[in-house]
């Protein structure tokens, strides 16, 4: 088992506010790795640090055995692809054009795509089921289609590691499963290491080989879903009443929230005076 990514004592501050605090872990090659945690726990920043978009003040990131700072932008983009949480809404290109842009790290500056690049783009589009949309403008697509196109673009980079920041957060149930199945397939077929940030604990439990649970910039737990998603750990991390039992589909933990009992950031229950009668 070789590690695709290794993070050692990563610390990062935005101004004076610590966002990541001595984070160390490694992602195994070919793994489906999901990062979970409450809002503001530093998940997005962590992924940005892993993709080289932000530079941590302390600590090291190793990608495929080489330090991140030793990579040029282009060399890094040939190994690591990223699907960010938010993309501009007004992208003027067609689906095929956007997907083909994923070839950029493999081409010289003005370089025009060769036949091989077109074939790779074509296959990426078939893989993500967007080939029939090739000529459509990106801003005319539904959220699910759009997300698949952005993933196709990332696949087109032919990365060894694919990072995705909340790829399913804007999608309905069917599309969530579709995207996660796609990523699973990508991992199985292509051996690509998949790292996903997610808010959906149940979805994470169903797909992840290993989970990383974060809170306040630090690692709370790391391990298989059964080890991380326990009642004690989750209640302590999320601060709300919940129920953990077995998922009838796969036997992984299933989390159910209990309404009306959140204690995030103090007592959030309505003050007496606001109660009806």
């Amino acid at each position, binding site marked *: 088992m070789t590690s695709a990514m290794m993070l050692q004592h990563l610390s990062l501050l935005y101004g004076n506010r610590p966002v990541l605090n001595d984070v160390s872990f490694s992602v195994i090659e070919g793994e489906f790795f999901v990062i979970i945690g409450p809002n503001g726990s530093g998940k997005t920043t962590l992924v940005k640090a892993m993709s080289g978009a932000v530079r941590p003040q302390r600590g090291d990131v190793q990608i495929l055995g080489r330090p991140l700072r030793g990579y040029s932008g282009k060399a890094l983009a040939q190994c690591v692809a990223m699907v960010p949480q938010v993309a501009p809404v007004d992208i003027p290109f067609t689906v095929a054009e956007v997907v083909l842009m994923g070839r950029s790290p493999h081409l010289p500056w003005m370089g025009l795509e060769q036949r*091989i690049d077109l*074939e790779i783009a074509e296959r990426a589009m*078939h893989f993500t*089921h967007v080939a029939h949309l090739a000529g459509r403008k990106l801003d005319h697509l539904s959220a699910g289609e759009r997300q698949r196109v952005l993933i196709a673009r990332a696949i087109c980079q032919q990365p060894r590691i694919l990072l995705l920041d909340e790829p399913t957060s804007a999608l309905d149930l069917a599309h969530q499963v579709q995207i996660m199945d796609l990523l699973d397939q990508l991992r199985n077929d292509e051996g690509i290491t998949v790292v996903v940030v997610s808010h959906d604990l149940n979805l994470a439990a169903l797909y992840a080989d290993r989970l990383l649970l974060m809170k306040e910039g630090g690692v709370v737990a790391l391990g298989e879903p059964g080890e991380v998603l326990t009642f004690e750990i989750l209640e302590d991390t999320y601060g709300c009443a919940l129920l953990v039992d077995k998922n009838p589909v796969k036997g992984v933990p299933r989390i159910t929230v209990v309404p009306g009992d959140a204690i995030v950031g103090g007592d959030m229950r309505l003050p007496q005076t606001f109660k009806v009668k």
Partner: protein
Amino acid sequence: MGRSGEAGEVMGKQGIDGEIRNGKESERHQGGPPGAAMPLSASLSPRVPASPCPPLSPSVAHHPKSVPRRILVVSLSLGLVLLISLWLGLSIGSTGQNLREVFALFTGHGDPASTMASIVWRIRLPRVLLAALAGATLSLGGLVFQAILRNPLAEPYILGISGGSAIGAIIGILLGLSRFPGEALFAFGGSMVTIVLVLVIASVKLSLKQDSLILAGVMVNAFCSSVIMFLLTLTQDARLHNILFWLMGDLSMSDANQVMVLAAILLPCFVLLLLFARPMNLILLGEEMAASMGVNVPLVSLVLVVVSSLMISATVCQSGLLGFVGLVTPHLLRLLLGPDHRVLVPACILGGGAYLVWCDLLARCLPAQGELPVGVITAIIGAPLFIFLLQRAKR
């Protein structure tokens, strides 16, 4: 699933997963675990009707495959348009139209000693070449700023960059400097100061809100205008009329040597921008995604801003303030040719050049006597378009 089949055939007849593995493994030498995975189509087809996989992919084939061909076709046809425009620009003037004579002159059959020849070589040729260069520069300026600021309304004149260059140029004139390099350096300084000012006012970062950016540009532009007015009140000699006319956008005072110097400055900039066409495309996908594809966004933006400001200030020194050119041509060409900058950059160079040659022709021919400053024509065409685009952006 057979590995022997050609990727294209497999694509057509069999499952999706076979096609991606067969093709990719051979190219990447590092494919995934070879185990027989569940076909992707099986897991997805109940929800997404698997697209009827065509035998060999008309989808991509029709679109970006043709980029090199499109660049060629667009360059050739717009190059032809530019040549015809230059020919008309050379032939039509106060002496009537002499299309055939000009053609003869350029093919070596004309009389090189005639008055006509001297008018064409000494007066009209520098003028139409300046028009073409200025049109190309300002169109490119608009294209670049619209891309890196991700704002369809960005334009050198509206952002106040032209105004800043003009201030610098006037200071240069008042100090009695030569046009190149003295005046041009002052203009470059002025344009850099204004672009920094606009960006700082609008919010420091390069990813900006549309309205605040345009507002900042309009304010800086207004400020520049008053500074120009102030500088003009200091000028009391005979140059005042010339400066005023130049400010309104004037191509008539062009002299062959200065046009050559301008071309020497601009042509390398054009080449540089051609090389940056792909990063400009990627930046349109958002800063984050561009960075994840290996584009150093801050560096690319900086280079583009500096190069554009250099081109614009050099042009302003020579041709004065020509508003809205950077708005009209990029939008028109984008409408015709799509958003790919690898096509748009050459198109803006050639098409923008042709556009300003035509504007100059109108400026020369419309009034019964004398001529209009060409800046009047570009503003009359461009300002309504700006308002239209602003309305559309609001929606």
